[in-house]
């Protein structure tokens, strides 16, 4: 992976819905580049015989039987909601998605 530049940081910030000033973008580009480089050093330690892994423990097939368990009431579901209406979460309309 190439070093992280300022445009990459701006793109990520937009995707993550984080507002960043010009100075923050400059600073973060440098800091992230250092972090990415540090992570990259792991690939120097791992040889070709070490497969990429997404989970630290070598487990597979951890399943649950298809049996109904507990549920919340609507009141419980909505108890932490900033706003609700007729048993449903009330959220601002988001216009740029479908």
């Amino acid at each position, binding site marked *: 992976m190439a070093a992280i530049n300022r445009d990459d940081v701006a793109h990520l910030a937009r*995707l993550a819905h984080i507002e960043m000033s010009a100075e923050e973008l400059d600073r973060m580009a440098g800091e992230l580049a250092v972090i990415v480089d540090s992570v990259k050093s792991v690939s120097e330690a791992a040889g070709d015989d070490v497969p990429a892994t997404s989970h630290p423990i070598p487990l597979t097939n951890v399943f*649950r039987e298809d049996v109904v*368990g507990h*549920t919340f009431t*609507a009141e419980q*579901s*909505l108890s932490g909601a900033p706003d609700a209406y007729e*048993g*449903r979460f009330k959220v601002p309309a988001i*216009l740029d998605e479908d």
Partner: protein
Amino acid sequence: MIDATLSFEEAMEKYDPVLGFEVHVELNTKTKMFSSAPNVFGDEPNTNVNEVDLGMPGVLPVVNRTAIESSIKIGLALNCKIAETCRFARKNYFYPDTPKNFQTSQYDEPIAYDGHLDIELSDGTVFRVEIERAHMEEDAGKLTHMGGAAGRIQGADYSLVDYNRSGVPLVEIVTKPIQGAGSRAPELAKAYVAAVREIVKNLGVSDAKMERGNVRCDANVSLRPHGRERFGIRSETKNVNSLRAVEHAVRYEIQRHAAVLDSGEPVIQETRHWHEDTRSTTSGRAKSDADDYRYFPEPDLVPIVASREWVEELRATLPEPPAERRKRLQADWGYSDLEFRDVVNAGVMDEIEETIAAGATATVARKWWMGEIVGRAKNADVDPGQLGVKAETIVELNKMVEAGKINNKMAAEVLDGVLTGEGTPAEIVEKRGLAVVSDDGPLLEAIDAALAAQPGVADKIRGGKVQAIGAIVGGVMKATRGQADANRVRELILEKLGVQA
């Protein structure tokens, strides 16, 4: 804004369509993909959820074994290879339909891949559709947009969210680009989605009701000039949720693309929304950098390993494939090839099977579905199964006809009453005072009156012109307001005139 379109014929003359489908199938497991909350449609909002479905901090998903098995069965039925190892990923996006801000979905390692499905078109032609992959994911919550134009996102003031559907297991079936369908593209589109629906219903892994969103189709369409290999730019029409709509949406997009290309403009790569009322699509959302979902392997779930033994065990449980089932049903029912194909094309094979299971004969079931219900569905512009005719209703109506209580004409009238919610057939017959006049007394009076009103007809009948009897039968039916049994009337007239039929 109304988009320009070319006629379908002109579009076909100039361009070659390429299709692609993403069909989402909701599994009918008892619980969700990653939580033990019930997978049930139609309950009070936000009651079929627990902390996992609401994406609360610190919760851990656990995979539903039955959902995996159902997914493998779907893969096998689509002639796919089943991955020895696969895993889930996080698809990151911000939208209130997922409270976690990511959807747990398979990405680069689908559970099933490289399959195919042979689709039979209405004239018996078989067209092979290649399946790219079938992968597992979870459904999102349901948003209702409030204020502004009712139900539409444009102009909405706020949205209400119900997470009951959140986490329902989905299998998304993705085709490879479908080339060479030509002018049969719309028909193939409908037949393909119908075939997928039939397969998952037959497997018993989904309720497969399109009107409930159990099977949802995104249709990709692009055009290229005849003879060119490179694909044109595609549009993706989202959530086309009936078989008729799939056919119409593909046809419409072909016509719209053709007009865009003819004008010299490029087609915009975007999602389109299907509108059943106007049978057209409108622009949704152009592809943008918001589509950068930053997939990464789901750290809370471990890989799934489908041993060959497990896959073979599941293969052994697969039911008879739909093509073989059709052959068997046709033989069982004794329909001719043409009769059976008409039934399949009308989309009432399952309904006829249910009606026979409820006690009707194959002939009676076909008579009702093909003779009465398909026409009503066409008039109402819906799929026949969506009219809501129950197998029991047909059996009850038929029993009343066979017992001579009502005639076929009245039965059709009663069916209309059932469909408008007037009640059960028995209640409607009672309420409307429908009954075949079977007592000969009033019939004989009506016959005398009809003979007197049309002097000369009796002599014609006596003289051998038996077909003239129709005029008298007609008069009697009119006098009894259609409540007489026409066959009995005919018998009585002949008896009275002393003529052998």
